[in-house]
């Protein structure tokens, strides 16, 4: 199979899944519509009708990790091609990536020491 045909197949799977879901929805719709009744569409909060809109500025306490993750994650972009040729290149590759990872690890250690690795 050519690579383009492979991508076509993946696209086909995506479209097919959407089709499956849509037909399920259509079937459910054919069985009946949800009845509009008072109180039913209010988000369920354990017996009280919740009233405030909850879409407010949410405090994600893990933002210290998130900042480090944004940068640290990038390392993966380099590691995959490296891993593929690792055996072929040999020791140089190990040293090369060793230096790269050591540099990144320093950043991690710095973040750790500054308290980025905790709930803020």
């Amino acid at each position, binding site marked *: *199979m050519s690579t383009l045909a492979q991508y076509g197949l993946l696209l086909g799977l995506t479209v097919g899944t959407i089709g499956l879901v849509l037909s*399920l929805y259509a079937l459910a719709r054919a069985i009946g519509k949800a009845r509009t009744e008072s109180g039913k569409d209010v988000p369920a909060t354990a017996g009280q009708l919740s009233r405030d809109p909850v879409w407010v500025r949410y405090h994600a306490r893990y933002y210290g990790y998130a900042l480090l993750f944004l940068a640290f994650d990038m390392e993966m972009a380099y590691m995959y091609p490296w891993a593929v040729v690792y055996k072929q290149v040999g020791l140089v590759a190990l040293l090369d990536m060793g230096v790269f990872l050591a540099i990144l690890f320093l950043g991690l250690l710095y973040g750790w020491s500054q308290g980025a690795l905790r709930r803020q």
Partner: protein
Amino acid sequence: MTTAVLLLLLAFGAYLVAVLENWATSGRFQLATPAFSALALLGRESVLPRKPDRIFFEVAPTLLLISAVLAAAVIPLTPNLIITDLATGALFINAALVYVLVALIMAGWGPNGAYAMIGGWRFLGQLIAYAMLIVMPITAVVMRAESLLTTQIVVSQAGLWNIVYQPVGFVLFFIAAMALAFLPPFDLTTAKGELAGGVEAEYSGVRLAVFRLGRLVLIITLAAATVVFYLGGWQGPWLPPWAWSAIKILAVTAIMLLAGRYMPRIREANLLSWCWMFGIPLALLNIFLVGVLVLVFS
């Protein structure tokens, strides 16, 4: 043809996962229960919350299912039984499964409910914890196989399965895979006792059915990925390759589903700090060890 067969197998596998999950939660092994549950969900109303982000609310279950199905597409059951043997298969699994996060964020934000929203953002924190532990062990696997092809990865384990060759990587990957599938004890995002269902709380009827289906496919896909990366895929004596794949996948699924029953849910703070303070250094160590081993044995 292969695609059709594999999709049927995937559906069948998801059904078996549902049976296993029902067994793990209710203690009863009933083959018919998931079928009834699915039909019942189809027949029940699917309530749309007031003032939702309608697009998110509708797209989330579908996206979850799509991402799981696409990830399954590059997993081989036998050397030839694979939907598409992508040249970057090992990376593609990651790429597809990241959209689980997107789906959960959408499902959390969509209904405009407090429990769901907290559940959705919690999963982002969970991703930040587990993501590196998915990709780094896979890198080590790729180092040994010298290829991102999933079939090649299985072939590379002919002599020795990766679970023996790089046990640290296996443990990290397994834990991270459970976290990715938000299985207990990592079910922070759908926690029943803490968030009354979290991101699932507002879904009902057919939308819930699609959401659950996506989750089941996700679990079996991750189990299959574990088998491919660490348990030698279809390899094994006596039995035909497909049988080995099936046995291993179901065994891994059962362990994934059962393990969480015997411990309380992890704290989000602990998950994050343990993954970053122990997990990532261990994953780096694993890469280094595998690097040395690969050089020594080549």
